Structure formats: C-alpha cells, structure tokens
C-alpha cells in the first residue's frame, strides 16, 4: 500500500517514515526523498497551483502503479500546494521494502511520475514582484518514460 496525501501544511518527514515502518519487522530498507524550494537567482517564493478535482486521484493512481510494480514495497506520498518559501519542503516520498533495490527504485519511480503526471504548476516569484511560470523539462519526460520500457520490478 502506498498512500497519497495533498496538503498546504508542512510535513514531518521523520515522523512519516517512522509511521510507515512502525510495527513491521520484515522491512530491510526505508528510503525518504524530500523536494525543497531552491532559491535560484533571488527567488523569494514558489507557488504551486493544482487541479483540485484531479490531483489527489492522480497521486493515488501513481501510487497504485508503483504498488503494482513493487508489490513488497509500502510508501507515503505527500505533495504540498500553495505559496512556499526557499528552503520549504514541497514533496515527500518515503518507501520501505524488505529489499533496498525495491525501496530505492519505487521512490525514484514515484518522483519521476509525480514530476510529469500530477497536475501541478509552479510559479516563481522574485523580489521585484515579477512572476514566472516554470517550464516543463524534457529531461523530466525522459526520466518518466524510462520506466515504460522496463519490466515492472527491474530497478533502473
């Protein structure tokens, strides 16, 4: 089971990982990835707009896809929206599995697909008040597509 949540509030990555693995003695590996707002070139804020009616369902669909690929892997996705400041956490992906390769691969897959298949848009805000919508990167598409060519449980 990989759970997905959408929220404006901050999250506690350590508490989420502890909750994920609590009570389990069969897990040999836990991976946590946190995406942060980077203050490139004097950026003062990053606002994440999203498609409320679709976003959570899409996060859950991505989670379900990962659970099919790595059935022994559990996890939690938390994606924030709204206005965030440099250093703030945007997204958490935490996974756990009996096997390290599965925990790493599932976390990597989840991030690649969140980048390209979840309906969020980032708007950068600068000190002089100007704003700019972030352009999608071709490298993110390539990262997401590499999973389509692999058999489900093969790590990259």
């Amino acid at each position, binding site marked *: 089971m990989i759970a997905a949540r959408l929220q404006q509030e901050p999250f506690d990555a350590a508490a989420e990982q502890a909750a994920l693995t609590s009570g389990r003695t069969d897990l040999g590996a836990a991976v946590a990835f946190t995406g942060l707002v980077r203050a490139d070139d004097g950026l003062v804020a990053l606002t994440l707009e999203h498609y409320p009616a679709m976003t959570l369902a899409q996060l859950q669909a991505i989670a379900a896809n990962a659970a099919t690929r790595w059935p022994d892997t559990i996890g939690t996705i938390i994606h924030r929206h709204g206005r965030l400041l440099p250093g703030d956490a945007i997204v958490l992906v935490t996974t756990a599995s009996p096997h390290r390769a599965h925990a790493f691969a599932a976390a990597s897959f989840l991030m690649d697909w969140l980048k*390209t298949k*979840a309906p969020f848009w*980032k708007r950068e805000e600068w000190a002089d008040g100007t704003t700019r*919508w972030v352009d999608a990167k071709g490298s993110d598409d390539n990262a997401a597509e590499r999973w389509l060519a692999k058999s489900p449980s093969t790590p990259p």
Partner: protein
Amino acid sequence: MTTLLYFAWVREMIGKDSETLALPAEAATVAALLDWLATRSPGHAAALADRSRIRVAVDQQFASAETPLTAPREIAIFPPVTGG
C-alpha cells in the same frame, strides 16, 4: 453544457479560471475543440497559439489531440505539468 477549466498561464492569458459553454458539433475531438476555442477571444487565441505547450484533461483524465469528445462534463486546459 461543458465546464472548461484553465490553469497556470493558460488561465492568466484567457483571463478567467473557468467558463461553461455549449460545445458546437464541430468540437468532436480535443484538437477541434482547441481550434474552436481559439476563435472566442484574443486571449483564447494567444493562450492556445502553441499547441505543443498545451495539455488537456477530459473528465479528469489526461487526453491527447485525437481524443474524441462525447458529451464531456469537464475539460481542463493547461501547460505541461511542473510538480514534484
């Protein structure tokens, strides 16, 4: 009637976040819908000018230019996503 939703710079260029319209028969696919929408105002035309930068979801499922439209309730139009 179909509710059209706009996000990110598509929303800003069109100047509204949604509108409810009766789609004409000619809007039989996503591509045809975008062609028709682009005629509605200069803002629509500007937002939809470069189709390589436009993505569409029909009833909350990602769609392609060829996706047929059969009485959709909700169509969202937006730039390529940039979450994560």
